[in-house]
């Protein structure tokens, strides 16, 4: 199991946030920490997930391909 902090830039909508969390659920990741900040049409989601490395990788690729997501970065 890995614990990873991801910072995701989303378009400013409820759907963006919900889709992000739905994808995490689909990937069976455990959400350990979350903070959201809306600023100038963008939502910054700062998230800490726990899960198998391949699932975290899948989540990053899946979110990067989503039209709701502007950028997904792995921080640590």
């Amino acid at each position: 199991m890995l614990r990873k902090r991801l910072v995701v830039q989303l378009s400013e909508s409820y759907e963006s946030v919900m889709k992000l969390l739905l994808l995490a659920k689909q990937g069976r990741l455990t959400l350990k920490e979350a903070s959201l900040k809306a600023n100038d049409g963008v939502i910054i989601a700062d998230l800490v997930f726990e899960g198998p490395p391949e699932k975290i990788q899948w989540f990053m690729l899946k979110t990067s391909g989503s039209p709701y997501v502007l950028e997904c970065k792995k921080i640590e």
Partner: protein
Amino acid sequence: MKASDALVRKMEDLGVEIVFGIPGGANLPLYDSLYDSNIRSVLTKHEQHAVHAAEGYARVKKRPGIALATSGPGATNLVTGLVNAAMDSAPLVALTGQVVRSFMGTDAFQEADIVDVALPHVKYATVVLDSSKLVKEFVSAYKCAMSGRPGPTLLDLPRDVQQEDIGEFEGIDETVEPRFLKQSLPPDEILLEKAAEFIVEAKRVCILVGGGAYYSDASKEILKLAEILNAAVITTTPGKTAVDESHPNVLGVVGMHGRFESNLAVIDSDLVLCLGTRLSDRAIGPPSEFKKSRRIIHIDVDASEIGKNVIPDVGISCDAKLALSRLIDILSTKRFSPKDPGWVLGLKEIGRSFDEYMFGQADRSRLSSWKIVKVIRDELPRSAIVTTGVGQHQMWAQLYFKVLEPGTFITSAGLGTMGFGLPAAMGAKAAAPDRIVLNMDGDGSFLMTCQALGTIVEYDFPVITVVFDNRALGMVRQWQDLFYKKRFKDVDIEDRTNLIKLAEAFGVEGLFVNSYEELRIALRRAIRNDEAIVIDVPIDKDEKVFPMVPPGKWLADVILPPGFSNNVEETASSPAK
């Protein structure tokens, strides 16, 4: 200009020629705008028909189909079709009406939060709350449905947003943000080199073709590569439509109900090149077995598919056609000894002996399904489009119906939606009015959406339906027979539904046939006259679909029809280990 008028104008600009749906209170402004448009609207009997028809249309045209529904139950009736389209990566846009903005969140009449219902399954969904953004949102949703890996999108449109005045049409910002256009990047050259190296080293190469290869239009490249490598081409269920199955290198569908020789090809291969497939358990069995004893190269336009179910030796995120073209170029610069052409020939021979065995079987009390499929293939023109429902008939179709032109086999593969066949056929006929469209259905599947016959008559979409009628939920019955000690529960349909009279009630000719010759004659007439007909063909409820790999088992654990396995050992040098 009214926002819905602008939306319809934009739909016309984008080439939308037909929409399928049902009007209701919350989408009346949109329907009012369609009144003055050149876009043909088809009033379906149920929203599920609309969304399946939109998918059938999209799969033929390779561009988004459009489904319309009102708020509440209209919108929620779309859900099965949206998930179906997501599972099979089919592009479509659903436009749902919503209660007026001031009523949202009050549990108003026919209010349902369709965006939240659909969100886990669609590529993009949003409520359009600003009428000035309606056109832009539609363009984004339309492009998004087609870009990268295709899929469904949904826009929820409050009624007052639709009818609001938005000023001049020309002034609307229609640019699509890059996030809606996730285009395929060129393939990584280093990974392609690595893939080419592995291919050169391999002795027996399988090319596993998924549905993504169809949308990528990669048929030519697949067959060219197969010829260069003397490779066996096998397909997933959605991938069946991507290649001409009469090509000497194509063996057919692989997996739980795959062709025997296709499963043998995987078992005996030392490399599988997977194209545009999510590598579902139905196609490959347990991933650990699939990965054992062979190298895996996985090419998919959706980067998140690579490594999701099977961790490949080389994974390339790219459009299949683009990657294969480069791979062929790279291989042309390499020297390698030709792969043994005898391998595929041997597998083909096993397939032939399997067919010979099956077609040599005497009929039981009724007609044999695989022989019915053969009659249909014999009679249909090459370009005819076949759709299916879901169940045993679907598996017989995938086993015995040979696709001769890409894009001519439309089925619900991922979700397995019973009732998909008839409305999808209607959509396919709308997309290709000059081609014959035939829906192979089971009685259980057909009865789920048979009201679409009324629409078929009203809008002149002459679709031929052949019902494999065993008065049972045959596939579930087969599982109860094989895995639940024949404890048949709620699978035998003892009703007296007369499918002929039912068809006639909708204005479609119904015909009961009791021999292959009668079926042949009926098909010839329907094809010649391009007319709608429902042909009811009785089959035996104890007939099973073979081969069958039990759920969770490896391809080598296949159950073959009684008597056939000995036959193989005697007549063919099986490549299976």
